[in-house]
Each structure stands twice: as C-alpha cells, then as structure tokens.
C-alpha cells in the first residue's frame, strides 16, 4: 500500500485520540480532578501505570510497524529466513523485561493496596467525623451518629478533616463513589464496609452509585459539600430546624422505593438505626452485625 | 481374547471422555462443598449441624455405600471372567444397596422437613440439602443406569458396548463413594464435633 495512504490511515486515529484528550482536559475529568488525598494518590497510581505501559506499547508498535514495512513480500531487498524460529537471546529478553516491569508494579501494588486500603484510617491530628451510609432504593441515607442528625443525598463535611464512613445497604448491592474524593467501596445488605477520606479543597463534589441496583439506580446521585469548619457547624445547626425525624417508623416509609429524590435532612435520628438496619439481615444470638474483612 | 473386552473398554476413547466428565462432576461437588463451607454456620437462629444430624444414620449410610462399591467392583471382576450371570448378580446387589442408601437418605430429608428444618429455613440448611441432595440425585441416576445396563447385559450379553457401559458405570459409582466420604467427613463428622 502507498506510503501516503498508510500515513493518512494512521494519522486519523491519532488526531481522533488527540481530540478526545483535548476535550476531556477542558471538562471536569473527575478521576483526575482530585479534591481529596485518597483520590490524589489513586490518580498518581493510574498515571504511573500508564507510564509503565509505554515500555510495552512502544516496542510492540515499533516492531509491528518496522517489521510490516521491511518484511513485506514486495520488498525484495529484505532478508528471508523461513526457518528462523528460535533464539535464546531474544526470547530471554521478552520473558525478562516484562517480568521486571511486573515485579516493579507488583511492589507498587502490594504497597499501595495497604496504604490506600479503604479500611485504613487517615493519619491526621484533626478529630475524625463519623458518617454512617445506607444505600436505599434509590437514594442515599447519611447518618451523623455523633450529631444525631441525618441527611438524604447530600452531606456537608469540613475541609481537612478525616471522615470515617461506615457503609451498608438496605437494598441490593450498591457502590459508594465520589471520584473526586476517593475510589469506591461496595455497600451490601447485612455487611458493614468502611471508607476513610479527607478533602483538602472546598467545593461540591458529585457522588453516585457505581453498581446497578435496579430501576432507579442511575438517579442515585448525591453531593459531598466540602466547607469550612464554621460553615459545617452552621449546617449541623440548621438541620435541627428540619421538621423531619428519622425513627423506625419514618424509616420504614423512607426505605420504600423512590427515585430521583431531592436532598433533605432530618433533625433527629434514633441512635440504633444503623445497627438495626444491619440487624435486619442477620440473626445470631446477640444480633450483632457482621463486619466486613475476611 | 474375551478378557480384552473389559481391558479394551478401559482403553477406549469413551472411557477417557467419561473420566473427564467425572472431573467436571468433581468440580460441581467442589463448588457445593465451598458453598457448604461458607454457609454451614449460617443457621439464622435455627439448629446447627451438631443438633440436627444423626451419626448412627450417617455411619450406616456410609457402610451401605462402601459395600455397594465392593459389589460393583465384583461385577467388573465377573466381567473379566466373562461370567454373565455373576455380573447380573453383583449389579443387582449394588442396586439394592444403592436403593437402600437412597431410601434412608430420603427418609431423613423428609424427617427434617417435617420438623420445620427445610432448605427454606437458613443458608446452612440450603447448603446441606443441595450438597447431600445432589449426591443423592447422582445415586438415583446410578440406579436408573443399573437397570438399563442390566437389561442390556441380559439381552445383548457381553459386547464391546455393554462392557464400556459397565466400566463407565463402575467408575461413576466409585466416584460417588469418594464424594460420600467427603460428605461424611465434612458434613456429619465435623458437624457432630461442632466445627
């Protein structure tokens, strides 16, 4: 095939990919547009892996292009060795180099899996805030057990403060995901998972469920508002003026299937609610909820 | 030599294929054992293995099944000796023992369900019934197979095909015995000890 034609065909995808990258870089690429320490570390991991992969992609592409051009049948000047099918040297190279790359990445994997374990508490002098999360059909319930208030589909957290989430579901499996703050964790009925985050940038960050849980799952959107300490305290105070109260009875109403729910708050939530929700699914002698972590 | 029919059967492609099938059945049971291992403590407020299962019954079932493996093997020996009536004798013995095993098992299942301990009661009982029940289903298939096999041997005698059927059945029956040993150990013995 003519060289110009090849160049044309090759340049099309390159221009296309470049356009996509250009577009994304002018949008809110949430996984890369981080506002939390965990998300930032996870982003660096992603970028590092992408960088390492060049060590494989570049040689492969180069060889493919080089060999295709040089050894095509119409090129009479190239050497033809029909039985050359074995070379210790060459084979050692391509068993070894990928192995080295994988060893490097394995060390990174082991370390980062521990450092960025969602169950690991964040190192900080600031006293953490506890939030209990319950995935429902099809909205998110957030309980602040220490403040006895609750909120639907929206939470306020103070900047530079570790947040310790405890998460469960009173609905099918969901996944709690706020990309700009951290990676996700599954929420499962009868199980309590954990996630710790810290945000160092004020703003409003969108969250969603990352696991299909039925008809209304795409509408399970919530926002995490990172505010100053005083704004946070004011917000807590303001929730006290809500007329809604979350007890076992109103919870029963709440847990009925609804979609695309607008955020609202409860001025009071009963202390054992999260524990009771977990307890619905387990039945042991002391009715203790099961904690994740095999 | 007529002996060769059995030896030939064991060297046949069909026998190799059947071995591989047994392997797949092994994986099915392995999955069910994994399920039982995960769920056997999930009694959901109900009674545990220790409270529900009777060791004397399990032991009896084990002895019956082991003996039936013996009689099944004796049928193969009879086949090697080209003794048609002996083959049928030992096959009938195997059938009767297998049927007794199944009868005892079904009676126990019925008893449990009547007491309110059915597969609906808990994860533990679901996993118990499916593991032991699947084994019992295989025993039932073996019983039907023995009837068909017996009829073929009676009508067509010792042919390459009927001998292939006999060796495959024998492998199947021994396999069920092995699985039962695991069931006995994991479900009944460990359950009895409270593990």
């Amino acid at each position, binding site marked *: 095939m003519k060289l110009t034609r090849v160049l044309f065909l090759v340049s099309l995808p390159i221009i*296309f990919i470049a356009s*996509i990258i250009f577009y*994304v870089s002018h949008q809110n690429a949430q*996984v890369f547009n981080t506002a939390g320490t965990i998300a930032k570390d996870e982003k660096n*991991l*992603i970028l590092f892996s*992408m960088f390492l*992969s060049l060590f494989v*992609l570049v040689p*492969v592409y180069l060889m*493919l292009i080089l060999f*295709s051009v040089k*050894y095509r*049948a119409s090129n009479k000047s190239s050497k*033809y060795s*029909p039985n050359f*099918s*074995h070379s210790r040297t060459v*084979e050692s190279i*391509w068993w070894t180099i990928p192995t080295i790359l994988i060893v490097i*990445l*394995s060390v990174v*994997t082991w370390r*980062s*899996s521990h*450092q960025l374990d969602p169950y690991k508490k964040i190192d900080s002098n600031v006293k953490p805030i506890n939030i209990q999360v319950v995935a429902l059909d099809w909205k998110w319930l957030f309980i602040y057990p220490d403040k006895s208030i609750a909120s639907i589909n929206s939470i306020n957290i103070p900047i530079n403060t570790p947040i310790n989430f405890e998460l469960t579901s009173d*609905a*099918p499996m969901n996944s709690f995901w706020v990309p700009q703050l951290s*990676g996700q*964790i599954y929420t*499962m*009925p*009868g*199980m309590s998972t*954990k996630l710790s985050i810290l945000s160092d940038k004020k703003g409003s960050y969108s969250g969603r469920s*990352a696991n*299909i849980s039925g*008809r209304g*799952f*795409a509408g399970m959107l919530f926002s995490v508002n990172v505010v100053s300490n005083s704004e946070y305290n004011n917000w807590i105070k303001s929730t006290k003026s809500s007329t809604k109260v979350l007890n076992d009875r109103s919870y029963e109403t709440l847990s009925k299937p609804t979609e695309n729910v607008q955020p609202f708050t409860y001025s009071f939530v009963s202390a054992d609610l999260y524990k009771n929700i977990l307890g619905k699914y387990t*039945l042991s002698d002391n009715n203790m909820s099961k904690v994740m972590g095999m | 030599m007529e002996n060769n029919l059995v030896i030939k059967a064991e060297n046949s*492609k*069909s026998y190799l294929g059947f071995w*591989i099938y047994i*392997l*797949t059945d092994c994986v*099915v049971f392995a*999955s*069910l054992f994994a*399920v039982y291992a995960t*769920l056997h403590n999930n*009694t*959901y407020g109900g009674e545990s293995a220790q409270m529900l299962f009777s060791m004397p019954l399990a032991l009896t079932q084990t002895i019956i099944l082991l003996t039936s493996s013996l009689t099944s093997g004796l049928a193969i020996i009879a086949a090697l000796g080209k003794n048609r009536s002996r083959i049928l004798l030992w096959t009938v013995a195997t059938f009767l023992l297998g049927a007794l095993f199944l009868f005892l098992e079904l009676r126990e299942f019925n008893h449990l369900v009547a007491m309110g301990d059915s597969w*609906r009661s*808990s*994860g533990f009982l*679901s996993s118990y019934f*499916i593991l032991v029940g699947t084994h019992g289903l295989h025993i039932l298939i073996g019983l039907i197979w023995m009837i*068909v096999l017996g009829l073929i041997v009676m009508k067509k005698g010792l042919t390459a*095909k009927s001998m292939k059927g006999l060796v495959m059945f024998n492998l199947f029956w021994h396999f069920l015995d092995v699985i039962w040993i695991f069931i006995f150990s994991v479900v009944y013995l460990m359950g009895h000890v409270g593990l």
Partner: protein
Amino acid sequence: MMLANLLGLLNVDSFRHDIIQNVGVGIMTLSIFFASLALTYFRKWKWLFGEWLSSLDHKKIGVMYIIVAVLMLSKAGFDALLMRTQQSLSVGNNHGILASQHYQQIFSSHGTTMIFFAAMGLMFGIINLAVPILIGTRDVAFPWLNSVSFWLFVSGMILLNTSLAIGDFSGAGWLAYPPLSELQFSPTVGVDYWIWSLQIAGVGSLLSGINFIVTILKKRAIGMNLMKMPMFVWSVLGSMTLVVFAFPVLTATITLLYLDRLLGAHFFTAGGGGNPMMYVNLIWAWGHPEVYILILPAFGIFSEIVATFSKKKLFGYTSMVWAIWAIVILSFTVWLHHFFTMGAGADVNGFFGIMTMIIAIPTGVKIFNWLFTMFRGKITFSAPMIWFVGFILLFSIGGVAGVLLAVPPADFQLHNSLFLVAHFHSMIVSGVLFGYFAGIVYWFPKFSGIKLNERLGKIAAYFWILGFIVAFVPLYALGIMGATRRMDHYSPSMGWQPLFIVAGVGVLIIGLGLLSLVLQVLYSIYKHIENRDRTGDPYDGRTLEWSIPSPAPSYNFSILPIVKKTDDFWEAKQEKRSRDLAYKDISLPKNSYIGLIVSAGAFALGFGAVWHILWLSIIGLLVIVVSVIVRTLDEDTEYTISKEKLILDDIQFYGEGK
C-alpha cells in the same frame, strides 16, 4: 382455573410489550417466516433437514454454529446501538427512547448474548471446522455428542430470544448478581430466562470441552506427537481444559440462584443466612476462566495466520506452548480482581492484583513471538493479516489498561466505570472477535471451495478497526470523567454527552464493518465461479488442512496422513514427498436427529422451569433421557465409504497415479 394452573405463571400480560420490543419480535418472526417461505419455494426443506440439521459432520456443525453466532452478534449489536442511542439522548430533561427497566434488560441481554452465543458460538464453530482436519483425522472423538452440543447451544439461544416475545429478560446485568437477581428485587421471569438459557448452552459447552480434549489427545495423525501439533490445536486444548474446569462452577452456581428463586432457599439472599458475596466469588471463578476460554483459540488462529502469511515458521513454538499452559493455570488464580471494591482487605486484594499482573507476562510473550515470526519473513497483507495488525494495535492497549486495573487502589476509582467497559471490549472485540473473523476468512476457502473477495475483506477489517477506536476511546475517557456503566440517564453538567454521541457513531461504523463481512461472504458466493479454488491450497499453506481438496470432502482425508514434523504439509512440499497410496474402506457416522430432539426436550425443560410449568419440564426431561438411552442402544450408526470412491475422488483432485 385448571388452565391457569397448567400454564404456570404464563398469562396474557406476558405477551404485552412496548413498541421497541414489538419491533424486535416482529423482525424475528418475519425473518423466520420469510426463511420458511424461501425454503418452501425452493423446495429445500429435505435438503435442510437431511444435509444439515441431522448431520454429524464436524464441518457442517461448525458452519451452523457460525451462522447462528453471526445472527446473535447482529442482534446483540443492535442492542448496542439502542444503548448508545439512549445514552446519547438521555440527558437532563430528556429521558431518551427507553424506560430504565427496558434499558437494563437490553444491556443485560447484550452482554449475555455476546458472550454465550456470539463469542462462544464463533469459537465452537471454528474449533469444529478446523481441529479435526488440522490433526489429520476424519471427525471428532464423539460425533453424536458434538451434534448434541450444537443443538443445546441452539436451544439455549432460542430460549433467550423467546424472552423478547414472552415475558421479559433479566435487568441485572450479564452476570445477575444477587440480591438484585433474587426474587425480591427481580420478581419477573427475566432472571429465570437468563439462568436456563445459560444452563442449557452451558451443558453443550461442557460436552464440547470433553469431546475436543479426547479428540486432540486420541485422534491425532500417526507421527503427530503433541509438540508437532499446530499451535491452534494447542490453544484449543488449553481452552477446552479451562472449559471442563470452569463450566461446572457456572452450572452449580446458577442452579443455586434458581433454587433461591424457585424454592425459597437462602444461598445468596440478603438475610436468612444467605451470602451474596459467595455468588460473586463463584460466578467469577467461572467468569474469569471464561474470558481465557474465548481468547486462547483466537490467539491460536493468529499463530496460524501469521506463520502462513509470513511464509515462515512460528517463532518460539515451545515458548508459546508454555505460555498457553501458564495462562490456563493462572486464570484460576485471579478471579477476585473483578471485585476488589468488595472490601476483602489489603492482603487479599494485593495478592490477586499481583497474580493478575503475572498473567500479563505469558500474554506479552505471545505477542513478541508473533512479531518475531514476521521478522525476516515474506509477508503478504491479505485480509486475515489486516485483522492481525488491528488486533496487535488495539488489544495491546486493552491489555495495559487491564494491568492498570489490576492495581487495586487504581481499580477503586475505575471499577464499574466506562473505563472498565472499554478495557474488556478491547479484549473481546479486538482479541476474540478479530481472531475469529480472521479465522473464518482464512479457512473459508477450505470449507466452501470459494476464495473470499479480498477488497471487501480488507474494507470490513478497516471498518471494524476504525469503528472500534471511535466507539471505545471515548469510553476510556468517560471512565476518567467519572462515568459509571449501565446508567440510563445523567446530568448535562457532567460533560459526558458529546462523548456518548461520538461512541454512537463508532457503533455505526462497526455496523458497517459487520455488514461488509456478510457482504464479503455473500458476494463471493455469488461470484463463486470466478472465485473457485481448485488447488485446495490457496495460500501455499503449512498445515495439513491445505493438503486436501476444497471444499473438504465429508471424510476429510482419503488416506490418513502420517506426519514427520511440525508444519508437516509445508515440509512435505519442500521435500517434494510423494503420498503413500494405501487406500482403505472407511466408516463415517450416519446422520441423526437425536441431537435436534434432545434440544427440543431441553427447550421444553427450560421454558417450563422459567414459567413454573412442571408438566412441561418433566416431559422435556423425559424426552432427553429417553433419546439418550435410545441412541446408546442404537447399533446402526455408521456408513461405509468404499476405497474405490476414495480413489476416484483423488484422481479428480490430484490427477492420475498421485
């Protein structure tokens, strides 16, 4: 009252659907109607049943698999178009053309159909066509079982498609995780349709797995020891080994899900002592090997193609064999990487992450071996090689994306996002599909005696490569932009819409690619006189299949070959070996309708299980059992071809005295 009980859960509402579903049902029904009309008009019913539907010839079974697979590929491709349309339109106040539940059924059906009926169908089709001839034998080890496998595949396919017309399909994704797939959250028959079509097709796959392992181990030509087999056959052996170890797990697991739904058991329920996480573990213990089941034969096809079109021996044969078995073993040690986000802890996540990366090594080794096969070869870039080039370019990107996802904390961000979707489509489309398309194009002359039109073949490959890039690069980007998979609606503030629209255009281009492929075949058949291949060896090939006439005769080889080396046909040509003319009478399996009957029984069993029609399921089961027993007792299952006929056929092909 009696009638209501007799029909289980079936009622009038089961037949009520929305307009898009009705169009789908209409297209299906009209296609069947017109096909029947054509068969009647051209008086081809007897030919259809006698020559094809009852055939135990592995080549015919292979062709039938491929035809069904391509139909299912088209159907699932149309699902993809609907999905892209929905996601391009459903922003802000617009809610697109599909209700959420319908959208969820569509993507569940898309994934299920693609994996189980398009990809598996293409795979078993090509394996059936090629393996016996590549190893120098006349048929598979168990020809009748082979027919049963195919018909069970068809039965599962029909059951799945019935869900469009009667009842509905699962909306729980292609793997139906509980608790969503339990009765409480999926109260309709949809999940049961999913369970039973997979159950039936799965048994077919399992039987094929056994069949091909015994075939490869026991039916190779004399002199073809294992290390002289074509690499494709090695890859099939590896894949079938995975089938026999993995599919029983699927069988067991979805049976348990069915029992939860039917009998109120508590295997995977939330509460009652059930454990939904157990399902996730089990289903992926099957699911991960499944993707290697699909890709290994595709790798094998590329091994054959690269060697043949580079006119050079495959580089690193031993290495390639070791790589296959490393992949087979390792594929059982990585399953947890599908749910790092379930919270198993850092040690467990780390272990599985590392194991996942290790499996990238043998895969990479294979790529380098193919490239070095090209090195110092004499390469012709016909259509199959274009597929190969596209595969290297695109599969590598998907592969490194996979290694990235294998780092658990990276996965925490990208799990269940469109980045993940782009990754696995890179693997399945540019790996599995490109490989099987290349194989069909490559071996087409052998089975039809017709050479495929090169121009259309290349155009098809270009459309697929280009279409793939346009359809899936935006999805990688969307993942980075925080887009979760399976969403039927989103906010315009996300900035996702333009990318969804571009991806939709990509799907259209892929559609053109599929059309070109089909056109290539139809046009080449239309021009069959000009395209006739009389040599049997249109590429100056290396392996045994090119030593026999095209189309391959029913008995494949008039004289079973005796093999000396790897790529023995090529060596024989170089050495100008003459054939040892030792003709013998041969026997081949007679046609049998039992496979078809078993399949009908399986459908009855499945349909009854879905709709709780006990008597129907019992009848279906009895039909299967009785058919099997009848076949076992049948003594008259073969027919003879005389050596005189073989001699005559050979004189026609080779000329006198050769």
